[in-house]
């Protein structure tokens, strides 16, 4: 009886052989039917991308250009298909964004182009593609990654959006400062509604959930930074727009509450070591609006200070906040018309768009900096749970 002696890892060349007729089964099991929340949780980050690349390497090794082309086409179409079907599920979109990027990084790292080989081990250099230059396919994959990124942002926005006004503006966490409501304004939420209200804590928890999902999927750190910057932009823009439309949000105490909330968001960035990703800077207009609610607004010196402080707000935004400003108690006063005129005169020569509200739909351009992997392809094993027994390690 033949004895099955497992091959040693050093005998493998980091390729996966498959029959042409199994290509559909491969993309079906590995892409279309893979559940990020089920089987994929225990996989090494980027495993689907590595498996697909190892299959591609074999097609390249046997010099079968048709097999290379159809595998790439099926892979790309399957990713698009799964995102069309489950594009509203953050985990699915995050999972395929990180795998698409990993696949793209593999195509570069093993392309044979010296600029991408600087960090390769000699063995990784041996594993470069032998016969085909896939530069054009890399461009297509990069286009796909951009599409997936935009989908991720939309998905994240639809989850965050309903929390922002409630958590950043309405919900009050600072004791003592906002016990008195601005005179003449009714409270918008009843105590019953409060139970279902989002708080800043809900927003922070949601940000942590997004972050942890992306980390679990092995998303490139540089890409996570871009997502977080975009999240902060949305939070800042939606909060500021609502402040500019609601008189009950323009008081000294709201300014205090907003500054506290911003400090908590900054603390979250610090905790995740994301202070340098540009996220904090996107909150600058909101920070300045909150400061504007709190500074003195009476003398010419006050006007001068406001004009130099509010350089991230447009004149119409500054004037709107000053007009909406509502005193909370007898120690404060409304902003005088004269003071507002002084501000308008001082800012007359500013070059800016007369826009009042921020565009909450802007998406910053995304980049996918090359991030080679130290993982040795020949050591990769395929878990049985992926149902890919028809692949042969070579």
């Amino acid at each position, binding site marked *: 009886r033949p004895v099955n002696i497992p091959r040693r890892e050093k005998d493998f*060349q980091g*390729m996966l052989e498959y029959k042409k007729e199994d290509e*559909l089964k491969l*993309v079906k099991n590995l892409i*279309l039917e893979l559940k990020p929340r089920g089987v994929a949780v225990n996989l090494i980050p980027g495993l689907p991308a590595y498996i697909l690349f190892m299959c591609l*390497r074999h097609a390249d*090794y046997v010099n079968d*250009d048709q097999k*290379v*082309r*159809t595998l*790439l*086409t*099926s892979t*790309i*179409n*399957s990713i*698009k*298909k799964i995102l069309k*079907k489950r594009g509203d599920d953050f985990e699915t979109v995050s999972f395929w964004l990180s795998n698409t990027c990993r696949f793209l990084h593999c195509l570069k790292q093993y392309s*044979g182009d010296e600029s991408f080989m600087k960090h390769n081990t000699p063995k990784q*250099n*041996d*594993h*470069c*593609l*032998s*016969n*085909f*230059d*896939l*530069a*054009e*396919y890399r*461009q*297509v994959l990069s*286009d*796909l990654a951009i*599409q997936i990124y935009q989908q991720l942002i939309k998905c994240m926005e639809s989850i965050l959006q309903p929390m922002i006004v409630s958590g950043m503006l309405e919900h009050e966490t600072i004791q003592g400062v906002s016990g008195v409501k601005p005179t003449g304004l009714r409270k918008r939420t009843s105590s019953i509604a409060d139970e279902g209200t989002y708080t800043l804590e809900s927003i922070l928890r949601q940000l942590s959930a997004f972050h942890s999902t992306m980390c679990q999927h092995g998303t490139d750190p540089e890409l996570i930074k871009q997502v977080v910057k975009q999240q902060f932009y949305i939070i800042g823009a939606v909060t500021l727009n609502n402040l500019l439309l609601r008189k009950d949000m323009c008081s000294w105490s709201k300014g205090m509450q907003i500054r506290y909330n911003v400090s908590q968001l900054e603390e979250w960035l610090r905790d995740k070591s994301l202070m340098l990703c540009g996220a904090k800077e996107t909150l600058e207009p909101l920070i300045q609006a909150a400061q504007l609610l709190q500074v003195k607004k009476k003398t010419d010196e006050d006007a001068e200070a406001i004009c130099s402080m509010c350089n991230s707000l447009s004149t119409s935004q500054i004037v709107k906040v000053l007009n909406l400003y509502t005193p909370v108690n007898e120690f404060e006063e409304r902003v005088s018309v004269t003071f507002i005129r002084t501000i308008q005169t001082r800012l007359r020569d500013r070059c800016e768009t007369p826009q009042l509200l921020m565009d909450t739909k802007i998406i910053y351009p995304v980049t996918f900096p090359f991030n080679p992997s130290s993982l040795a392809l020949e050591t990769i094993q395929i878990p049985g749970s992926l149902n890919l027994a028809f692949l042969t390690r070579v």
Partner: protein
Amino acid sequence: SRPPSHPRVLLKAPTLQEMEEMSILEDEESP
């Protein structure tokens, strides 16, 4: 595998849209 001694052949790629049109995957939406 060894690095090739010959130049690699550039594979021309279709666009994302063209790829979708040549898909071998069944479209669940179609009857």
